[in-house]
């Protein structure tokens, strides 16, 4: 009889390594699942634009009142500047979670975050 044991010590090391790998995979790929990945920007009645949240960048969109500046940074997005009177859109602050929403109604620009597991189908106010 050469080997009667089911597991050798090297096998146990491999099993332990696999058991360490799995929680890491879960936390790496599933951690913070509500984080949005893209933002959908709608300007007036144009086709919505999808922009990624991975790259920090500033965008300028032209609405009927003028230019709104939108900033993407660290997976978040916000209105920086808008030519509207009450500045509700700017005061909405950073958006980062799925289905979060900000709009500048006077300038007809809205931002919606789209992630991988949307929490809402639609929102009415």
């Amino acid at each position, binding site marked *: 009889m050469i*080997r009667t044991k*089911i597991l*050798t010590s*090297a*096998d146990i090391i491999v099993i332990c390594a696999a058991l360490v790998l*799995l929680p890491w995979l879960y936390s790496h*790929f599933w951690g913070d699942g509500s984080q949005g990945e893209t933002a959908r920007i709608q300007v007036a009645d144009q086709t919505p634009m999808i922009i990624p949240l991975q790259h920090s960048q500033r965008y300028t969109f032209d609405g009927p009142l003028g230019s709104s500046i939108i900033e993407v940074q660290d997976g978040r997005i916000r209105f920086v500047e808008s030519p509207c009177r009450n500045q509700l859109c700017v005061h909405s602050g950073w958006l980062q979670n799925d289905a979060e929403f900000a709009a500048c109604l006077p300038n007809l620009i809205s931002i919606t975050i789209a992630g991988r597991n949307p929490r809402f189908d639609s929102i009415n106010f």
Partner: protein
Amino acid sequence: MTQPPPLRLHSTPDDRRIAALAALAIAIHVLETALPSPLPGVKPGLANVITLVVLLQYGWRDAVWVSLLRVFAGSLLIGSFLTPTFALSLAGACASLAVLGLAWRLNPLIPGQGLGAVGFSILAALAHMGGQLIIARLLIIPHDGLFHLLPVLMTAAVLFGIVSGIISQSILIHIRQE
């Protein structure tokens, strides 16, 4: 008019052994496709038990033969030859054979008994799933969202890897006792 001499294929005992083992693996492979699967891509992979037994009993070269014959002949029998399923299956087989080959070469360097069937099985299962996922990402679903499946698929791979490893080791113990 002279008749051409009849074509004779000479098979060595090695060929016949590989063919018999591959036939066994193919049978398991085909039977396994009849099993319902909870998730696409999650399969127990019991045919790999044969690959593992062949690896530990006859070496890596025979394991490559048996595994690739299983992928090709199995897909012909199921009717998935050259379909995306076949591409995934082949990618998985190649990846796990590559990892098994590496582990097989390195194994004598490990002090003590080295890896047994269970260790090889887990490595092969993880490599199989990894290879499949890379090909799926490149050819079938070119989106990084695919990798969100990775944790579940790898968990399944580890569990089924351990199960096939234990089965293989029991078979090996049985064979070696005779």
